[in-house]
């Protein structure tokens, strides 16, 4: 697909750490509105790819464009977030000494400068939005609980809620089902499918059942580049994929 019509466009992206190539000429295109699953063995570079997209890591070479025209390699984390890319980390990261409610309020789309927040008074609209999100992530009863006291799965959900609160165009979700029970995993898949109705989503996940239940196009990463792309059945039939990943 051409860069101009893409939402996210990576071309020939390479990143190396002390000579080790974590990403190797990676090229990947996400269309507006698309949901994409990324799989690959540990160390394949999935998290590093998200680091590059969100400005945490600068690529050594290659192009990263958002919305067809915005070059992300020149932007920092805060401006990339402002552009509309939200990220959920592999290890759930919420603000532990804030309540669930405050976590969502902080994430809510609103002016981000120090003077704007200093004089900020929460509006009725914002409250409604937080209520809606609490409902969605099923933490309504825990709104006044400190995030530190949530279970692992609840933290994952809270972080997804925070992601939605930002109202991003593109969500990058790194291993959302890690550490969840089977039931929670299934619910998370449903939630993500819901979200994908009006957002573009890139999900990294190991759990094949989870990926299958999403029913979307899959990209297999291996050693920093794309090994195969297509439906889950299509990539599962690929010999190389079976060899490096599924066959284990």
């Amino acid at each position, binding site marked *: 697909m051409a860069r101009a019509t893409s939402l996210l466009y990576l071309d020939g992206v390479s990143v190396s750490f002390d000579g080790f190539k974590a990403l190797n000429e990676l090229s990947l295109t996400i269309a507006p509105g698309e949901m994409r699953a990324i799989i690959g063995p540990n160390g394949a570079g999935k998290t590093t790819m998200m680091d590059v997209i*969100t400005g*945490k890591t600068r690529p050594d070479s290659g192009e990263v464009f958002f919305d067809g025209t915005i070059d992300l390699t020149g932007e*920092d*984390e*805060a*401006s990339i*977030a*402002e552009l509309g890319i*939200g*990220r959920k*980390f592999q290890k759930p*990261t*919420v*603000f*532990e*000494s*804030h*309540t669930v*409610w*405050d976590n969502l*309020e*902080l*994430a809510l789309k609103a002016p*981000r*400068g*120090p003077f704007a*927040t*200093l*004089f*900020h*008074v*929460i509006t009725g609209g914002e409250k409604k939005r937080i209520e809606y999100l609490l409902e969605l992530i099923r933490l309504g009863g825990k*709104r*006044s*609980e*400190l995030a*530190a*006291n949530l279970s692992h799965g609840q933290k994952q959900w809270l972080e997804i809620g*925070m992601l939605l609160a*930002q109202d991003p165009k593109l969500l990058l979700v790194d291993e959302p089902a890690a550490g969840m029970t089977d039931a929670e995993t299934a619910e998370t898949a449903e939630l993500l499918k819901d979200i994908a109705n009006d957002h573009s989503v890139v999900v990294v996940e190991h759990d094949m059942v989870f990926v299958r239940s999403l029913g979307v196009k899959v990209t297999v990463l291996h050693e920093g580049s794309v090994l195969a792309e297509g439906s889950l059945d299509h990539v599962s039939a690929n010999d190389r994929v079976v060899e490096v990943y599924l066959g284990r």
Partner: protein
Amino acid sequence: MMTSFLFRALDARAGIFLAIMAAAIILVPAANLLAPEGSAFHVPNYAVTLMGKYLTYALLALAVDLVWGYCGILSLGHAAFFALGGYAMGMYLMRQIGTRGVYGDPNLPDFMVFLNWQELPWYWYGFDMFWFAALMVLLVPGFLAFVFGWFAFRSRVTGVYLSIITQALTYALLLAFFRNDMGFGGNNGLTDFKDILGFDIQADTTRAGLFAASGVALVLCFIICRALTRSKLGKVLVAVRDAESRTRFLGYRVEHYKLFVWTLSAMMAGIAGALYVPQVGIINPGEFAPANSIEVVIWVAVGGRGTLVGAVLGAVLVNFAKTWFTGALPDIWLFALGGLFVFVTLFLPKGIVGTVSQGWTALRQRKVSAAYEAGSDVPPGAPPQSPGATANVSATKPNPTPSASAGAEPQPAE
């Protein structure tokens, strides 16, 4: 906008603190000036000055708590801003001496005449006017903090590395101010002050006035800090403290937030120094000593970081103990201070105020639960929403597991 901003500053705990402060501001000077000597209510002059000094230390501790307790910036150099504010005030007080100095020079302070200087250095201009000096008390520490913070925060220096360069900053200033050719009196610093705003600096009334001014400054800065930390900005600060990079990925420019509180905090430290100097009658480079900054951190840790009130309490208590110790057992004070720090770190990690308010919330929680069991329909664990973001106080519920509460601890040194 402004009213809702200030309104946020007030709640029960702040109310108690402000009431105590108001009483002290009125009663101490009154008991000093009005009660006859020998009466049980008389507060002696030395005590007024001593307490005035404690209040300026409390303001310094408040400034440190704002950056350390709420934003996780462990400053080991705040005494530098305190001393700079002190020097700005000292320069004003020197210019007020006029011809009453030993050498009687109307323009040059004694130490400059002694060094055979012919004219006042340009950076001493303006300090004969109080308003100018007062402005410098804010601007000099503020400017230095801004420049320092601009580079440090933009290059994302955090944790121990930041703490170390704040120590280096105050140490560099210590060395610089020791030099005679800097024009700040070298080793001896600035002293022999005569009057302030036309009032004799030794007079009882002036001393009582300085005490009251220190109290008022502390109250005003407390209200500002309180309003700030309870605003959404305060929540962002705590977010930065607990998970800095997460805050960035939400779109907050962490370096702007740090720069804002850092500069504000330095200005507050400057005010504290400016009120300190006329009360102790001298400012010399010793105030830049790295150990001074570390002591402030101990005060805050003892009182409870991230509580504001705790910083004030810690500063007053530790300095009270210091006064007593250096009188009674001068040799062991440093050991006592070190021991206190170890004790607090090991057994009272939330400090006095943090521990007390945690116990109090736990008690209240138990009452709510009891009421619930007795048939009231307020469920336990549904306390009023959004309890500010006090760092060390698990505001809504006692933590069920120790590991969960450990996770919520601020980690200043990464």
